[in-house]
């Protein structure tokens, strides 16, 4: 049955299209977007198929490449968690690529072929990272995705190459630290397979190399996930990259890194061993908590929408990592659910900022006014939905991941982190309602001028290619919120051993 080949077929689709797009693109560059859509569409379809298959059978597919048994060969482990994450990132990528039509014309005319090629490569890397069951193979995919995202970020405004270069330096250091950690573990255990190594770790957990490896891997992946204080590369990269690149990287890139952190902490080491030598979960939890507050506060201080969203990402990734660091079932549910929720919310918000940029030529919050309500009514409804979800008001999706995270902190009696969740929700409200107020209310200072200028703004709503993905995501936020119990029941089956 094809079901068992799905783990290999998903990355293979991206490889195929990463080759097809430049070849055909040299001949006709205008159909590259259609090809990229086809590629990510197939990948999304396959991931949906695989996820449904998993829900029905609960079966974990272990795909051995070339028929070589691990630990000699490389395997892909398509368990529930991987199936879920893969579906999320491919579906988001598909929607963002639909949205990219207008922006690509505007922000990088003539460079569509490289853009779509690289985005396929990047998705290949991300999918590979999620699926692989081999630590070194993971590094290879990490580098594929990283190199592609450096390139994607460099396609943007004049300052983009500079911020991409900075990201390249920091990101490479992060990748190298991770690789160093893997090397340490390999010298001690003699294997690179995650499941195999998990079985061996209890015997060698006291070894100083294992402790060193854990530290190196957490820091290395933490850089990629923009875990505070390793987030320095993120704000500028997201801000100056093309709007569609940031919409593609922001919801997916850091999530995948957080997922790796989850794999390393809860699956490779596991709940019993992770704190055996050092209070790793406590330390990571503290950094996550500080990051949540730091990101929210910095977001309030920004006057540019994309930069605000970038800082907000740092804060939100903190939620996911906090959930992981709680190392209990509620925290795990919260973290996994927040991967989905935040991917939807942040992609939607970046798409809104992209839509505004194509229409207005900027996304400066200071220049927002109440004409937007008339000009882009539905875009603003989508923005409002995402904003309310970010603040965490029920019944939108954002509430429920916070609810599970809060339950997780309560289970650990970690009142500091509970307070962090609550405070950060309020800070979110501050930076979103600030914008909503500008968009929906008259400016009281300019009241006279408003009446004098009787020219009422015309409806100038974005086209279908931009509206459709935004609408899907906004409705998705409501649907995920109301029916989250179904998703959570599936997440129950994804728990690592020891819960």
């Amino acid at each position, binding site marked *: 049955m094809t079901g068992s080949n799905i783990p290999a077929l998903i990355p293979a689709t991206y490889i195929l299209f990463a080759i097809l797009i430049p070849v055909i693109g040299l001949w006709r560059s205008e159909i590259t977007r259609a090809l990229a859509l086809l590629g990510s569409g197939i990948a999304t379809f396959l991931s949906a198929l695989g996820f449904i298959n998993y829900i029905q059978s609960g079966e974990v597919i272990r795909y051995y490449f070339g028929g070589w048994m691990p630990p000699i060969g490389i395997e892909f482990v398509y368990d529930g968690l991987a199936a879920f994450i893969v579906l999320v990132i491919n579906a988001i990528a598909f929607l963002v690529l639909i949205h990219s039509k207008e922006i690509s014309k505007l922000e990088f005319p003539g460079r569509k072929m490289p853009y779509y090629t690289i985005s396929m490569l990047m998705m290949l890397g991300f999918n590979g990272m999620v699926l692989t069951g081999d630590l070194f193979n993971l590094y290879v995919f990490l580098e594929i995705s990283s190199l592609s995202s450096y390139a994607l970020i460099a396609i943007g405004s004049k300052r983009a190459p500079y911020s991409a270069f900075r990201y390249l330096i920091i990101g490479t250091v992060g990748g190298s630290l991770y690789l160093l950690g893997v090397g340490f573990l390999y010298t001690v255990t003699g294997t690179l397979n995650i499941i195999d190594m998990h079985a061996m770790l209890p015997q060698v957990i006291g070894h100083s190399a294992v402790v060193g490896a854990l530290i190196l891997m957490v820091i290395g992946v933490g850089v990629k996930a923009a875990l505070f204080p390793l987030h320095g590369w993120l704000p500028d990269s997201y801000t100056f990259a093309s709007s569609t690149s940031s919409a593609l990287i922001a919801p997916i890139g850091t999530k995948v890194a957080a997922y790796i952190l989850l794999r390393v902490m809860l699956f490779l080491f596991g709940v019993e061993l992770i704190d055996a030598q050092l209070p790793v979960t406590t330390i990571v939890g503290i950094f996550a908590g500080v990051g949540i507050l730091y990101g929210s506060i910095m977001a309030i201080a920004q006057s540019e929408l994309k930069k605000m969203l970038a800082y907000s990402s740092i804060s939100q990734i903190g939620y996911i990592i906090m959930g992981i660091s709680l190392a209990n079932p509620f925290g795990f549910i919260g973290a996994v659910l927040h991967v989905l929720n935040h991917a939807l919310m942040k992609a939607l918000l970046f798409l809104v900022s992209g839509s505004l940029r194509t229409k207005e030529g900027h996304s400066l919050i200071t220049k927002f006014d109440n004409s937007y309500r008339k000009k882009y009514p539905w875009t603003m409804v989508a923005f409002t939905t995402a904003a309310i979800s970010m603040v965490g008001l029920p019944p939108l999706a954002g509430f429920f991941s916070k*609810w599970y995270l809060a339950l997780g902190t309560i289970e650990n009696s970690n009142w500091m982190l509970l307070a962090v969740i609550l405070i950060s929700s309020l800070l979110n409200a501050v930076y979103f309602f600030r914008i909503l107020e500008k968009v929906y209310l008259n400016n009281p200072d300019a009241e006279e001028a408003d009446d004098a200028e009787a020219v009422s703004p015309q409806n100038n709503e974005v086209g279908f290619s931009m509206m459709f993905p935004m609408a899907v995501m906004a409705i998705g936020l409501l649907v995920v919120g109301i029916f989250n119990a179904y998703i959570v029941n599936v997440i129950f089956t994804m728990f690592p051993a020891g819960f």
Partner: protein
Amino acid sequence: MELTYIPLFAVLVSLAAVPFILLSSKKPNLREFWTILAGVIKFLLVLTLLPSALQGNVIELQLLEIAPDLPLVLRADTFGVFFALIASSLWIFTSFYSIGYMRGHHEKKQTRYFASFAVCLSSTIGIAFSGNLITFIIFYEMLTLATYPLVIHSENKKAIAAGRKYLTYTLTAGLLLIAAAGITYYLTGTLEFRPGGIFGDVELSQPMAITIFLLFLGGVGVKAGIMPLHSWLPSAMAAPTPVSALLHAVAVVKSGVFGVIRVVGFILGPDVMAEFGLNDILMVMAGITIIVASLLAFAQDNLKRRLAYSTVGHLSYIVLGAALLTETGLIGSIMHISTHATMKITLFFCAGAIMVNLHKSNISSLNGIAKVMPWTMAAFTIGSMGLAGLPPVNGFVSKWFLATGALEGGMFIPVTVYVISGLLNVGYFFPIIHRAYFKKGGEELEGHTEASPFMVVPLFTTAILSILFGVYPDLFFNFFDMATTVASSIFNPM
């Protein structure tokens, strides 16, 4: 008879009216027709639940699991029907009044106004019929958001500042409530509203009990206006008067005190409250609020702000009544939800009528207005008498039970608080009446007559209702019977 779905329909009917309201924004008469229609249907739906509520029956509808083991439940128990009846019946009056007020005042954006109002009512009925805390929280937050456009309605600096303040207070409250719900759920494994509380077998430590209680208090105390969490309410008077009348005297603030009673009687339960001395905390805070708010009311020259502080004080009557933990006290407390509603909505209606008709909002400028607006001022007098606790207005009945409840528990300080506050009420209301009737009005009053019937009829009707309910509390809706049923279910859980 199939009653199961009626709570759901009662919640949804005003929500269903929203698209119609929005679509008929160009035709004001049609638009207002939808509001009235939804109001009447909603009221009738709630009314069909009354017979079963009087028998103490519970109609429950489980909608879906919002999270594993946490269903979204609509449940029309006696207390819920009680609150829903008050909110939905007064909405009809307010809708008529709104037509007169909004058109008389030439307000802009009336479509947004009526649409938000409808959402508010859906949320309020949802709060009334919430069968567990998670459902309550969802409607509670919905109410917060739906009220916001009404608070900032005039979109001037003052209104926007009030809107910010309102959101800051209520969103913080919502978060505290969520935290409280989280801890409760973790400890008890349920969030159901159960008469007598859900903490039955749970071992609580003193600090834990106080933490949970304070989180809950922060959560529901903001909307209930318990000091020091009250200051959004006077600011929110920047909203149009019908909003102040229905939302800031009935729906929103009563949702707060409704929440207080839900927490005290249905989540924590009287036993837990008494065991850890939580009722003492509540009593002290409510007592201080009653006195301080009454004193602050003296200092307000703006009529609506004086009424707002009076509301803050009277909300704490209800809270204090719940904190007494005696059956009679709770009856008085629940009764005061209904009596204060009819009285205070009358007073706000009067304030709005004066504002639209004479363009006066300060008490110092009300000299002699009873000559031009006799009906309005008569209603105002009835409302004031009721709030001061004078018979035959219904305020007397609830206050009587509140005071008796305190005596029953052997608590003399609360009785003193009620008595002093009654005197203070006389002190800050009667100068207004005195000005209106006995001082000579200025020349600007000449040529003015009574306000539009759209305003005068509702305000006079609610005043008459206040008297009728004072003479015969079980008239029409059996408010008294319901209050007794609720109180006895909490103190004698099955």
